[in-house]
């Protein structure tokens, strides 16, 4: 009971810190914090498939990118208020996840990893080549950030305002995602990750459940991508490349895939590391790979994961 109280207490503190953040840190860190929140959601959506359902996907960025492009295109061509673009982003990534997932979940984990990588890169290739629609490698830029929608008068172009918008959306989305992991559906996913055969003998078509998990994860990744495009001011194919998928993987492993907040913590460490390291070198990917390798070899439970393991005495 006291552990639960402690966790709620820590969460409340974190939330308070996030709300008060802009008033305590240099202006630059508002951008960093916005990115951490968005990436945290992206990584958490990946972890629904990886940590909770036991499927390693190397193509998760396809949905992130789909969300970005959807938002960017709607803002550019139709000047739709942001809230509706975000909903559209979730819808398009959900559909993409349904199509890709359909092909990938039918095969074992080795094939699954290969296929998600391949299909993810296919989406990348399409975004890269289809100049007429996606503007190719330059990506989509110059979209206006007018209004949020729902009658709210928000100056989205102001980074501080955008930070708070992202904070609210991400906290709500994270709460929803957490609910999903603690729901009966979430229990089934955990069971599937451990023993899919047993689940099918309980009367459930476990393949269908894995597909549904994949789709839900794609939906949240799309939302993250939708938030990212206005922040980044561009929707480009890089967001769909496997290196972007690799970021979700690393953030999750860094924080720990066994706990819901692991990916968020990992995103924080990741973005801070990236901000720091890219100021010295262009070869951030190299460090990404090295850190991932070291984490997998020596710290498989992740930073937050190892800490929570100790605290909860597992």
């Amino acid at each position: 009971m006291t552990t639960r109280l402690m966790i709620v207490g820590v969460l409340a503190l974190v939330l308070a810190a996030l709300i008060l953040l802009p008033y305590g840190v240099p202006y630059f860190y508002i951008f960093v914090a916005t990115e951490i929140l968005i990436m945290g959601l992206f990584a958490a959506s990946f972890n629904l498939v990886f940590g909770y359902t036991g499927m390693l996907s190397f193509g998760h960025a396809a949905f992130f990118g789909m969300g970005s492009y959807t938002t960017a295109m709607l803002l550019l061509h139709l000047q739709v208020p942001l809230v509706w673009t975000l909903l559209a982003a979730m819808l398009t990534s959900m559909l993409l996840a349904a199509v890709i997932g359909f092909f990938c979940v039918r095969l074992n984990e080795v094939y699954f990893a290969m296929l998600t990588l391949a299909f993810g890169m296919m989406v990348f290739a399409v975004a890269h080549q289809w100049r007429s629609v996606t503007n190719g490698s330059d990506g989509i830029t110059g979209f206006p950030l007018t209004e949020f929608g729902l009658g709210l008068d928000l100056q989205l172009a102001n980074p501080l305002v955008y930070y708070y918008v992202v904070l609210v959306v991400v906290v709500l989305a994270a709460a929803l995602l957490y609910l999903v992991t603690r729901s009966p559906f979430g229990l089934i996913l955990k069971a599937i990750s451990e023993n899919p055969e047993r689940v099918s003998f309980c009367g459930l078509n476990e393949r269908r459940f894995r597909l549904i998990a994949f789709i839900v994860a794609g939906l949240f990744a799309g939302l993250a991508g939708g938030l990212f495009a206005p922040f980044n001011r561009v929707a480009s194919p890089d967001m769909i490349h496997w290196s972007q998928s690799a970021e979700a993987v690393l953030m999750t492993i860094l924080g720990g895939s066994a706990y819901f907040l692991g990916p968020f913590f990992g995103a924080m460490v990741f973005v801070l590391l990236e901000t720091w390291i890219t100021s010295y070198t262009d070869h951030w990917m190299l460090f990404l790979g090295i850190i991932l390798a070291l984490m997998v070899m020596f710290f498989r439970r992740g930073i937050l994961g190892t800490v929570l393991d100790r605290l909860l005495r597992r």
Partner: protein
Amino acid sequence: MQSFIAALLNSLDIALLLFVIAVGLNIIFGVLNVINFAHGALYMLGAYFAYTAMGLLGLSFWVALVVAPLLVAVVAIAIERLMLRMVYDRHITDSLLLTFALLLIIDESVRMIWGPSIHVVDPPALLTGTFSVFGVNYPIYGLFVIAVGIAMMLGLWLLFTRTRLGRIVRAAALDREMAQTLGINVPMVITGVFAFGAWIAAVGGVVAAPMRAIGPAMGEKIIIESFIVVVIGGLGSFPGTLLGALVLGFIHGFGGRFLPEINLVLPYIGMALVLLIKPQGLMGKRASA
């Protein structure tokens, strides 16, 4: 007709090179039960070592063909001993994560050491020029690649079916514990197989170097192609790899010539079709979940 012959030769060219890369991937999977996501990066490393040898050190192509793959094999031994070994008795996901991390490391290291620009090496003097095949002037080097592919195919087949070494490897692949009990040094076999697979990929890289632009995106492209080959042909099947490579080679050879707009997504469409009709690959064994 001419156009057809050219496309045909081109397809074989591409197919056999793809076979060389994909078969290494398959062999590693067969014995280590790991998909080496870094396989394309090792191929690229072979090409870059060849470029260094030929372009920067002025050595001949033939020297590069011998030395570069051996260097890559050494790198592979280090990788296996220091890194892969740590995750063998864990869930397979950890091995996949590790080889993926390796992919990032090698890809970026190449970019760092050799820079982002594209390099070119010339084919050796012996193999320059064209040759008339059924009325088509085809580059001799292209024919060389086809020959290398066939030689590799036959060599591997002989190695695995006719030699004692091949039998030992197959035993280790089938039943590790049993092989260990029979006195086979399984850890050494595993290291050897990984190094061998890397060596094959590097040979492919050296052979591909005069034909393709050498750039940091080489590895990325080839690993996806290898995956498609293996999915179409079926993981764990030697003839399947050949079949998959031929299918993809022909898709590129003919698609590239006659359907250039959708050429990029054709391989994926082919893969999706196979996944729909025969998910374990055209010649594969059980792969469903």
